[in-house]
């Protein structure tokens, strides 16, 4: 019996792998724990150079790394959420919204930008996971619908970047109907022969998967993202067994025929440019 006893279970990091990383200047990969200079990490599209872990990033980062010179015009920023049902669980939805807005500096979980990608015009609607789990409420649905309308009016291809836990419970059936709304708008876009690209990132689940995220002319996934309809916890509880390794990953979806390609974020812009030029 040693005189020293570990209080917390499960700490198994060997001493030589431990790193102390100062905040700001360095970025420590949440998966491989290796440190990289924050600037280099950003230059590498927030992808770990050691293990290729794609860090979870938001609309600001995606717009910055996709649009030429980071230049774009934001559309429909004046559309803001409300609390149509007076929803109350452990906290009221109104305060949840205010808190999330304060914490994230965003008004809801999706922003739309229009700009150029390798000189090709593109409308991008990008979800922000750090706003109530990227959940889809009325604002997300409405902004996607208007982004599609904008793309139709101006005959510009459109891309939606999904990163979401699914529909927003606090807007209940209002959220549900955003699935029908966005899908119907995509039907109109398809009629006009304007390309729609769906980029699926970690995570893309629930009502988002069961609507616009799966409807791309091109379904592109980032590596190792979780993509599925039912959440892994729900499936595990339903079938009463552990899930196979890699289940509901980008690679699993590629294998089963639901995404066209997996593209590293570092190559995303050039791939999009190529694609847009081919379809122009």
């Amino acid at each position, binding site marked *: 019996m040693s005189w020293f006893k570990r209080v917390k279970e499960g700490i198994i990091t060997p001493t030589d792998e431990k790193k102390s990383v100062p905040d700001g200047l360095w970025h420590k990969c949440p998966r491989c724990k290796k440190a990289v200079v924050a600037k280099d990490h950003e230059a590498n599209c927030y992808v770990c150079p050691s293990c290729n872990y794609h860090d979870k990033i938001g609309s600001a980062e995606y717009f910055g790394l996709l649009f030429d010179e980071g230049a774009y015009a934001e559309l429909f920023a004046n559309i803001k959420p409300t609390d149509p049902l007076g929803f109350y*669980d452990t906290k009221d939805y109104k305060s949840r919204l205010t808190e999330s807005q304060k914490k994230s500096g965003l008004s809801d979980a999706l922003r739309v930008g229009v700009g150029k990608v390798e000189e090709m015009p593109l409308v991008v609607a990008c979800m922000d996971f750090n706003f109530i789990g990227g959940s889809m409420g009325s604002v997300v649905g409405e902004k996607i619908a208007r982004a599609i309308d904008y793309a139709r009016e101006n005959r510009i291809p459109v891309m939606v970047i999904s990163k979401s836990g699914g529909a927003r419970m606090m807007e209940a059936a209002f959220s549900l109907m955003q699935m029908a709304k966005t899908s119907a708008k995509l039907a109109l876009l398809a009629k006009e022969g304007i390309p729609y690209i769906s980029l699926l990132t970690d995570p893309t689940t629930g009502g988002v998967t*069961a609507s616009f*995220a799966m409807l791309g002319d091109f379904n592109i996934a980032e590596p190792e993202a979780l993509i599925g309809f039912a959440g892994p916890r729900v499936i595990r509880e339903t079938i009463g067994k552990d899930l196979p390794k890699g289940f509901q990953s980008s690679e699993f979806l590629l294998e089963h025929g639901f995404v066209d390609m997996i593209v590293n974020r570092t190559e995303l812009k050039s791939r999009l440019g190529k694609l847009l030029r081919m379809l122009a």
Partner: protein
Amino acid sequence: MPNYFDFEKPIQELEEQIEKTKQLSQKNKLDLNATIKDLEEKMLAEKKRIYSNLTGWQRVQISRHPERPYTLDYIEHCFDDFIEQHGDRNVKDDKAIVGGFAKLGNQTVMVIGHQKGRNTKQRQLRNFGMANPEGYRKALRLMKLAEKFNKPIITLIDTPGASPGLEAEERGQGEAIAKNLLEMSVLKVPVICIVIGEGASGGALGIGVGDKVLMLENTWYSVISPESCSSILWRSWEHKEKAAEALKLTAPDMLKNGLIDGVIPEPLGGAHNETNEMYSRIKDELTKVLNDLSKLDSEKLIEKRIAKFSAMGAFTEA
């Protein structure tokens, strides 16, 4: 002995009292007709009182009543000459969704609906009304067939959700539902959808994009079941009643919020209580709505359908 809910206890007590009085009068050859009549009136009043003040959770319970009519019951009693079709032409036949052409009066229509089972064996066969991707793809195949032959489509919604499982994910549950939403929004024929029981989330909406979306009075329709909502937001299954209220999932609430087009009243005590009355109300409503929709050409139908769903949502625009 019929099934009673907790909230029906006063009705059950009165019913038992009536039964006892009847037995007493028979046994002792007493004329207790006045008492019986009195009790029956009391019971009716009690039933009306209870059923005009139902909470969200109580309606959820009624929507799941084991004797409630299911899709095949409506098909048998509201339609004639049903010819069931099977399979998605791809993987298999999903028994949780049924469909085929049938006659509504003189009109040929395509009827599609979720199907639940009545006993353990049937419930397993029907997977509790939880469809897999092939179910949604079968439904779409049949809808396209209806479009081809210019016949209107009627869908009956009754599901606790799309099936969550390994195979459902492997075969693209999300894609199957998404595809239906897109395709249904541009179908060239009239589409009428009725929630006849449970309307849970994407699994319900997957056959729910229509020109007229109606709900029976004691059904529910939302983004999640009250139980799952409770387990996620309160981290326990105990708050299902509160969740049911918060979700505003009842037919009157859904109509008030502009998310459905109408409510079909149920007989007193719920659809299961007087099934024949329920069947005739649905048949009348369908006939009427079909007649209205048949006046619109397909372009107008699609335009109005998309405009309706596009207008759904609550936000501010400063």
